[in-house]
């Protein structure tokens, strides 16, 4: 079925291009040959790799800083009520709005898109981790204390595993955002990657076949990333958080 739906979409696309006699928008076949051209020039895999590398570094930083921050905010209600207004205000600001500042601080360098990806991924991770901690049933904490666990042990052995399903959801959402942001960030700050491919193909000769090729690559890679993130939710020690209990 999904294959059929994708085939239908391609068919409609091909039909639309033919019927409108457009000279600007490429047909599916032209996009495929565009992809072949990119692969032939050796930039296809380099651009994909560069984009993924940027996402990985910004996302990893957000994960390493975001999870402890979220756990701390979820565990200490006072800390949460102090920082929540700041977080809630920073959250709706699109990472793209930070672009001028990112360039000002980091220049036209790898750090600028990395910073934007970090910003995009950081807040969803923090919010998911802190919500996850706050919704840990009191019974689990009581049981953990009853067995004589110190607070660090309680955090590691009860609070974190109990919050993990929610944290994983946050990580998956953050990965999607990180991928969105890298493409936009590459349109300004760097000269490689899939975002750069799109903006460069348009500016240098209006190669709309390559523009659409870039878009499709972004979509396909985003899909794969999401599927990989969903795989984590199937792990046995977190699966309980993702299905209604049947008992």
């Amino acid at each position, binding site marked *: 079925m999904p294959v059929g739906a994708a085939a239908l979409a391609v068919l409609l696309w091909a039909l639309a291009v033919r019927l409108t006699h457009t000279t600007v928008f490429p047909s599916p076949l032209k996009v495929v040959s565009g992809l072949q051209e990119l692969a032939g020039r050796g930039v296809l895999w380099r651009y994909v790799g560069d984009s993924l590398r940027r996402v990985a570094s910004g996302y990893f930083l957000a994960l390493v800083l975001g999870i402890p921050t979220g756990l701390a905010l979820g565990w200490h209600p006072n800390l949460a009520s102090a920082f929540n207004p700041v977080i809630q205000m920073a959250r709706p600001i699109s990472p793209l709005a930070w672009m001028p500042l990112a360039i000002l601080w980091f220049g036209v360098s790898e750090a600028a898109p990395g910073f934007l990806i970090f910003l995009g991924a950081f807040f969803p991770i923090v919010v998911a981790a802190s919500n996850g901690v706050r919704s840990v*049933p009191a019974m689990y904490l*009581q049981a953990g*204390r*009853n067995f*004589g666990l110190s607070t660090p042990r309680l955090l590691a052995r009860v609070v974190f595993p*109990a919050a993990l399903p929610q944290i994983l959801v946050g990580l998956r959402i953050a990965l999607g955002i990180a991928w969105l942001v890298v493409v936009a960030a590459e349109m300004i700050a760097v000269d490689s990657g899939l975002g750069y491919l799109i903006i460069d193909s348009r500016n240098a000769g209006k190669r709309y076949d390559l523009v659409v090729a870039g878009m499709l690559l972004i979509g396909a890679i985003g899909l794969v990333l999401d599927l990989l993130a969903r795989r984590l939710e199937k792990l046995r*020690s977190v*699966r*309980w958080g993702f299905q209604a209990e*049947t008992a």
Partner: protein
Amino acid sequence: MTPSPKVNIRSLSMLFPTDGSVIEVLSSIDLEVEDGELVCILGPSGCGKSTLLNVVGGFLKASAGTVLIDGQEVAGPDPRRIFVFQERGVFPWLTVEGNVGFGLFRLDARERAERIAHYVKLVGLSGFENAYPQELSGGMKQRLEVARALAVNPDVLFLDEPFGALDSITRLIMRSELLRIRRAEKKTVLFVTHDIDESVQLADRVVVMSTRPATIRRIVDIDMPHPRDLSAPRYIELRDLLLEEIGLAHKI
């Protein structure tokens, strides 16, 4: 010298402030529980019997009065006294083995494995060592939680309506399981329930609580040896006595 009671509750009161007023939940409770005794605390829903158990367990601080266990005032939760909830208290991210071994972090690996194996077998979960709680039935989860509690070798178990969420057949099976396990591991048990039959089937003594603010109306000795015959005249007599004490008619 007579041995001092295992659990000694003295003029215990509990007040909960609500907006504007103060609600008295427990009112000067006095109770002594002997070592190895199984005492059921029986009362209507919402009477404060769970609150009493939480205070004795060290999870709530009493407004007045004291709780002594082995002559020492209870200051907080303690692994020597384990609280068993309804089966929802098992950790869903751990396997059966992981749950049973949860409190055994101070032991070395070999001793831990032995204890786990012993208690998994005792509660009849052999073959399910690597199963996760979501793959178990309600009754099996309840056994698992009991095994997790017993594994740390506590002297007192607090059971707060442990079988309340189970269907009536499973509940009956679990009661005889509890009695069987208790023969193997002699523990002092405080068992909160609102089920009159349950209390007559399990307890050495039944403490009947009043409605809020909860006081002890009466303590009834269940002078029947195990296994108890559920249609014996004495069983019916004791059940009717408790029914009356709780203020319910014999007919429906």
